[in-house]
Structure formats: structure tokens, C-alpha cells
């Protein structure tokens, strides 16, 4: 059996450092999710307004954010706004802002889709039964929308966690960066460290995302 470089993980504090790096990535995604979900719901509700100007502006903004690779958004935000406005932005703050903008755009699209998926006869039947507009929303439309929305927004969380691996590229010290440092430091003693360490990160990300997507799938099945 070839040396898989797994022994590096048990040297010193390496495993703790890797977990710390993963926590940085998770923290960025959790903060962004916590802010972008309410923001996305707000934007999604605004998309249902009839005002054509608001709608057009929102639409262009959201489509632009959604069509650009997240890496490009990170670069544009990190390098360009710091240059244009002269502020000093840490990589972590920049990535949180970008993920909020992106997450809100994705979320608003999910909200819009969920609202549009409610058939028209639901509104009409409610009206025929004498519900007021507010009652129709609270008792009929919103509960159904939530059921469709919740699994999708939980999925958005895993997408967010997966995307945070990109923050390495704007110099945030997260799990991949820590891995590179560990591999560099142990180059002489265990030249095969890259295999073991990257495999570990692969499994770590899987263990972070898998339970969340299982929950989403469970809810989707239960509430279909």
C-alpha cells in the first residue's frame, strides 16, 4: 500500500486548523444566508408588483447577478469597489457582501417562482368564499408558498456553503488555504500529504452539506 499522506492530519494541531478553516467558510456562508434570505423574500415580493419601472430595474439587476459566475462577482467587488471608492475591504467582508447580493438574487427568484406556482383558482375560490385580500394571503397563499419555498431555500444554503470555497481566490484564509499551508510545511516529511489532506477536505465539505440537502429532500417529499 502506497503512503497516502494521511499521517499529516494527526500531527500537531493540523486537524484542528483544518476544521478552523472550514469554520471560516461556514461562518461566511451562514452570515450571508441569514441576511440574504429575508432580503430575497423582500425583493421577490417586490417582483410581483405591477410597477413596470421597479420591475425592469430589479429584473436587470437580478439577472445580471445570477448570470455572472460568483468568482467574477467576487473579483469585481473585491478589486474594483476598493479602487473606485477607496475603502479598505478585507477579503472576508467583501465575500460576505457578494454572497448577500448573490443569495438575495437567487432567493428572490425562488420566491417569485413559488408565488407564480400557486394556481389562479386558489385566489378566485378564496374570493368566492368571501375572504378578504389579507385573509387570502395569510390563510391560503402564504402557507402554500412557504411549503414550496422551504426545501428550495434550504438547498440554497448548501449552494452557498459550496460557493464559499471560492473565497480562497481573494485571499481569505479558509480551509483550502490552510490545507496548502499544511502541505507546504510537511513537504519534506510526507510528500504525499496533498492526497490525504485534499481528500479530507472533500469529505468535510460533504459532511457539512449532505445533512442539509437530506433535510431539504425530506421536506420536499413530505410536503409535495
Amino acid at each position, binding site marked *: 500500500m502506497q503512503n497516502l499522506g494521511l499521517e499529516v492530519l494527526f500531527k500537531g494541531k493540523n486537524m484542528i486548523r483544518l476544521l478552523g478553516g472550514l469554520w471560516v467558510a461556514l461562518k461566511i456562508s451562514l452570515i450571508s444566508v441569514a441576511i440574504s434570505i429575508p432580503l430575497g423574500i423582500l425583493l421577490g415580493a417586490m417582483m410581483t408588483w405591477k410597477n413596470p419601472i421597479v420591475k425592469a430595474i430589479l429584473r436587470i439587476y437580478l439577472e445580471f447577478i445570477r*448570470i455572472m459566475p*460568483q468568482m467574477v462577482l467576487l*473579483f469585481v467587488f473585491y478589486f474594483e469597489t476598493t479602487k473606485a471608492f477607496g475603502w479598505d475591504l478585507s477579503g472576508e467582508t467583501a465575500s460576505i457582501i457578494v454572497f448577500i447580493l448573490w443569495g438575495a438574487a437567487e432567493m428572490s427568484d425562488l420566491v417569485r417562482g413559488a408565488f407564480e406556482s400557486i394556481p389562479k383558482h386558489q385566489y378566485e375560490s378564496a374570493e368566492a368564499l368571501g375572504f378578504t385580500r389579507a385573509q387570502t394571503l395569510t390563510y391560503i397563499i402564504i402557507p402554500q408558498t412557504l411549503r414550496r419555498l422551504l426545501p428550495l431555500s434550504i438547498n440554497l444554503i448548501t449552494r452557498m456553503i459550496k460557493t464559499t470555497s471560492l473565497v480562497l481566490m481573494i485571499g481569505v484564509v479558509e480551509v483550502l488555504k490552510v490545507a496548502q499551508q499544511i502541505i507546504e510545511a510537511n513537504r519534506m516529511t510526507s510528500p504525499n500529504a496533498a492526497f490525504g489532506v485534499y481528500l479530507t477536505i472533500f469529505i468535510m465539505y460533504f459532511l457539512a452539506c449532505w445533512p442539509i*440537502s437530506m433535510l431539504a429532500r425530506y421536506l420536499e417529499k413530505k410536503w409535495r
Partner: protein
Amino acid sequence: MNWTAIADYLPLYEKAAVLTVKLGVLGIFFAIIIGLICAVIQYYHIPVLKTIAGFYIELSRNTPLLIQLFFIYYGLPKVGISISPSVCGVSGLAFLGGSYMAEAFRSGLEAIEPIQTESAYSLGMSRMQTMRYVILPQAFSISVPAFMANVIFLLKETSVFSAVSLMDLMFTAKDLIGLYYKTTECLFLLVVFYLIILLPVSLLGSLLERRLKYAKPGA
């Protein structure tokens, strides 16, 4: 904005865009094949293979492409599997995309109610005929929106390729910024080129979606 610089950089970006599209299309092609195989395995509930496909789908859906590429490119050579950056990029994209495509196809197949199959059988159609004339046409139109969303998603994901030293758009932009410090121009070109690649695909997607809405049974 320095337009002469932009004119200077343009050929470099063009080359990078061609590479991005080429690798993206190849990766998506293999992803579709993997996706079709997995979807068929899951639809017919083939034992053993079904478990393997399910495991693969979970594994690839719950890990980021960047980590997959790092593992393939830097990890695998340590156990004797050494591949070139472009093969690594394509296989990473296919590994990631296969599961997304499988989910898209499977949801299309599963949306066809059993009554359709049963009716086809009672009309005397064979298994193959049912698949070819009844199930596939309907499943296709149902899975098109998810399929197009996956294509866009995978094209976007190619931006990660720069991490394994492929000279794609992202790499070119980073490289030029490092060399000349013309950040604004480089990033502007980067955004423009990604729009050129992704906008037509996105428009095609929404066009197809609108056209196929009427093909849904009972709509």
C-alpha cells in the same frame, strides 16, 4: 477606461473565451452522458448499480467543484494518477455535472404518471415503443428548464478552472491584472466576455421554457 489597453488585451481574452467554451462544452457533453446513464439506472431500479449511482450523486452534489478539482489535480498524482490540466477540468466538470443532469432527467421521467405507461401497454405497445413514443417526449419537455439551468450553472462553474492553471477567462484576467495593474479594464473585459458566452444560453433557455410550457400534459 483605457481603450487602447482593452484593444491590446482583446485577443488574449478571445483565446481564453474559446478555451472556456471548449472545455465547458466538452464537460457538459460528458455530464449529459453520465446523467442519462444514472437517470436510466434509477428509473428502472437496477439493483447494486442504483446504490452506486445514488452514492455518486450525493457525493458530487454536496461538494464544490473547486475542491473536486484540487483533489483531482493535486491529490491524485500522489497515488500515481497524473493528468493534464484540461483533462482535469473536463473530468471535474463532468463529475459535478453528471449528478445535476441525472436529477434533471430523473425528475422528468418520474413526472410521467404510471397511467401513461399502463395505457400504452394496454394499446399493445412494446416497452421500447412506450419509452420512445410516450414517455421520452413528455419527460424531455418537462426536464428542459432544469436542463438549461444546469448548462448555465456548469458554464459558470468553469470560472473555477483557473485554480488548476488552465488559461481560461478568469486566469487571463488575474494574470493581466498582476502584470499591468489595469484592474478596471481587465475586469470590464472579463464581465463582457462572460456575458457574451452566457447571455445567449440564458435567452435560449427562457425561450425554450416558454415554448414547451404548452407541451405539458393537461395544461
